[in-house]
């Protein structure tokens, strides 16, 4: 029977560690935003990985950067090829080093913020946009609405605040025939968070506030 779960609950380093220490032969599949990644274990070693277009160690390094997605571990499935020669602990160490180095990269500056947001129950994905409609950072691809759409909505809600002699709302949520979305001001930017449709704004707000702090 396959082990299934969410990377929000069990991160990839832990999954790799678990399978290697148990000396498993297995296939780990990760699905995030319709994109698939695979890690193969043989007798407790990582022997092959794919995360299009990467293969081998680079694929593992890329997958280590994922903070959300579904995973499935199927025992007894053997690798179609051997593309990784490093021992599993060297592979993990190198991957984690690369992640640390990557934090200097501006596109990855908000990784910790996304990680904090995505561990909140009810949060599906998030992105940060600036006033020029540029997505500064995104936890995943989302084309539900144009970025200008959010900006226009944000402008209207700011004006509503002014009419009530208040500041910009702390959070604005909207729902309809889609998942629920939340808009939050974050420094000079706007954070757009996709939420599970039944999420109650007042319940999630303290957690979002803490994550954005």
């Amino acid at each position, binding site marked *: 029977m396959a082990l299934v779960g969410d990377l929000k609950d069990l991160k990839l380093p832990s999954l790799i560690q678990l399978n290697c220490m148990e000396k498993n032969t297995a296939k780990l599949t990760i699905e995030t935003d319709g994109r698939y990644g695979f890690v193969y274990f043989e007798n407790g070693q990582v022997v092959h990985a794919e995360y299009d277009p990467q293969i081998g160690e680079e694929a593992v390094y890329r997958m280590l950067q994922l903070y959300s997605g579904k995973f499935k571990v199927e025992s007894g499935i053997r690798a179609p090829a051997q593309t990784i020669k490093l021992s599993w602990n060297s592979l993990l160490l190198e991957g984690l080093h690369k992640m640390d180095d990557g934090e200097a990269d501006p596109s990855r500056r908000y990784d910790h913020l996304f990680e904090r947001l995505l561990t909140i129950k009810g949060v599906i994905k998030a992105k940060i946009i600036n006033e020029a409609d540029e997505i500064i950072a995104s936890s995943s691809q989302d084309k539900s609405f144009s970025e200008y759409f959010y900006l*226009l909505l944000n402008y209207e809600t700011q004006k509503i605040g002014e009419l009530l002699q*208040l500041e910009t709302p702390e959070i604005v949520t909207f*729902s309809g025939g889609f998942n629920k979305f939340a808009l939050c001001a974050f420094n000079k930017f706007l954070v757009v968070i996709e939420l599970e449709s039944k999420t109650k*704004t007042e319940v999630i707000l303290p957690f979002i506030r803490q994550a954005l702090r």
Partner: protein
Amino acid sequence: MKNEWLDDITQLDAVQGAFIISNRGSVISLAGNLKKNQRLEDLSVRIMKSAAVFHKFSHSLSELELFWQKQVIICKVSQNFILVTVCSSRQILPLLRITLNVTYARLLEDKKFYKLVRDEAGDRTLFLNRDKLEAKETEIYSKIN
């Protein structure tokens, strides 16, 4: 303007007021401590514009909620009207949501209300016409298209 439609809502503690906006942007029912004045009219137009953005791009909108530290606005959006509630506490939100659902369902079945809304029928996306938009709105809106 009948406001007994909204009495159940405004009887809740911390609810400052509730009102219903027609698709033409007029306040067709008002209850609680809110006063019908220019500010309320402006507020209605802003809320209607927010809803119009969704309508314009074929995204259905059913709820819009705005949270400040000490103020919450909850808008329940129907095709023909928007029910807006202004509240000063988050503690009562679970009860308020239930009350809003009940009131909303009653409104949809009320013939007098239906007639009122029908008389005030209009295309909410007209609020996004160039002559209704401020410079900043026009700038952003032109980029969506």
